[in-house]
């Protein structure tokens, strides 16, 4: 009897050791989530169609759905019956700090994975590839970046576009006045009220802003892409255990065709708040990404 008890105990210990993945103990983030029974998700407020509020103040979007896939995987990995998800809105300016100081565990919005940021935070597999282009009024006569010389151009503060356009202005002596707006919504307001002739931003976000415009038909997206960028989910740096779980979930979604369905939902069909269809077909870069997911930064 005693021996039997010993064996069962041993078996139980062994099975938990086997069942508990080794990295759950190594990963501080997974440990924190397991102990607290909750995970804090960072989201954006107006990054249409990636992560934004609908008219009922619910967070929705492509990146948000991808993040929820990762959350399901985390819950399964930790064998939790219940995992509370706390939502925390972040901005371009505070997202890195909030990940670093532990306020937010994972942020999927429209955050570019680049080498500079990799010094401070970690990134999951890429979930989207975009190009930086211009939105302008159809009647403005602006067709490409060269037409912007001497004009007012708006972009969003803290973005790669801001960096590129200011660099271009210095290098080519174009004499543009670059306005850095607080967020995409305010940048579009600056464009819509005529303070700027063009709005430089990631193409997908530009299509998103167009969906919010009073007269979407007045606007168009033009210009050769100045850069390609890889959007990833931001994680804390040096936490490979957590990254592995998140990556596995995202990669599975992308290779299994789930991600393409989510893409179609947000980019090829009418979306809130105005029921406008972005009509942005799957690019070659995106097709390549879905076939072979990776976490490479473009710059």
């Amino acid at each position: 009897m005693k021996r039997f008890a010993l064996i069962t105990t041993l078996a139980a210990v062994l099975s938990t050791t086997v069942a508990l993945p080794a990295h759950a103990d190594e990963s501080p983030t997974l440990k924190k989530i397991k102990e607290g029974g909750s995970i804090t998700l960072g989201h954006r407020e107006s990054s249409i169609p990636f992560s934004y509020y609908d008219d009922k103040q619910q967070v929705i979007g492509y990146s948000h759905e991808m993040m929820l896939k990762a959350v399901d995987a985390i819950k399964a990995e930790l064998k939790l019956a219940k995992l509370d998800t706390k939502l925390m809105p972040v901005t371009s300016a505070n997202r890195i700090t909030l990940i670093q100081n532990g306020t937010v565990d994972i942020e999927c919005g429209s955050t570019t994975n680049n080498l500079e940021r990799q010094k401070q935070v970690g990134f999951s597999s890429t979930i989207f590839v975009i190009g930086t282009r211009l939105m302008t009024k159809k009647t403005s006569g602006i067709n490409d970046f060269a037409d912007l010389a001497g004009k007012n151009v708006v972009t969003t503060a803290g973005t790669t576009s801001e960096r590129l356009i200011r660099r271009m202005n210095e290098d080519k002596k174009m004499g543009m006045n670059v306005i850095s707006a607080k967020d995409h919504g305010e940048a579009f307001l600056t464009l819509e009220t005529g303070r700027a002739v063009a709005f430089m931003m990631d193409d997908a976000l530009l299509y998103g802003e167009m969906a919010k415009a009073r007269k979407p038909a007045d606007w168009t997206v033009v210009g050769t892409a100045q850069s390609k960028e890889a959007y990833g989910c931001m994680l804390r740096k040096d936490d490979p255990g957590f990254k592995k779980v998140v990556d596995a979930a995202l990669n599975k979604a992308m290779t299994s065709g789930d991600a393409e369905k989510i893409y179609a939902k947000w980019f090829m069909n009418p979306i809130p708040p105005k029921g406008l269809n972005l009509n942005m077909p799957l690019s070659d870069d995106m097709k390549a990404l879905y076939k072979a997911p990776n976490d490479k930064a473009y710059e």
Partner: protein
Amino acid sequence: MNYQWNWAVFLQPSATGDGSYLDWMLSGFKMTISLSLTAWIIALLLGALVGVLRTVPNRLLSGLATAYVEMFRNVPLLVQLFIWYFVLPELLPVSIGDAYKQANPVVQQFLASVVCLGLFTSARVAEQVRAGINSLPRGQKNAGLALGFTLPQTYRYVMLPMAFRLVVPPLTSEFLNVFKNSAVCSTIGLLELAAQGRQLVDYTAQPFESFIAVTVSYIIINVTVMTLMHKFEKRIAVPGYIGGK
């Protein structure tokens, strides 16, 4: 948390090719100073005028002055700034509004900020000035009038020389507030100290260094203001009153 400190970040050339990151901070510092000082001058002039008007016997004038103070004091600074910057140009005739909006954005942002900050602070200065005038013994005004001064003369030669000197200490804190409130102007894109600090975070991903630099800069500004105002207070203090010898 694992943070990579890098104080040398300020000496790096900026990613946009316009000088070093230290140059960004310095230009933000200059912008904060010029914005705040201009706004303060507006606030002092308008505030003194409105504060005096609030105490005059004429019902219409004092009513107008009260309305002015209540309007600028009871609407949040941020809301006022958005009205000046976003709403006002839309109320102008379309051709003038469009021409204005196509002008250099820095000029637009600076104008909106100076006017907003100046008027907001003037309402607060007006309240201090009014309190200073009301704190004078009533006998002073009556004595002035009894001596044959007109009301404006009584204000000019009897009450204001006292009142203005009495309100210098409370005005010092308003002066400090102008510098601190000027950070709100970063929300419309004006690249003052706080905005440059935030921008530095975006470009270098070194939040602690830049926010510490911003904090120290504000402290330097405000300690300087406090020291100067303290000297000024001592010079003009009225013997026998609070702060006087």
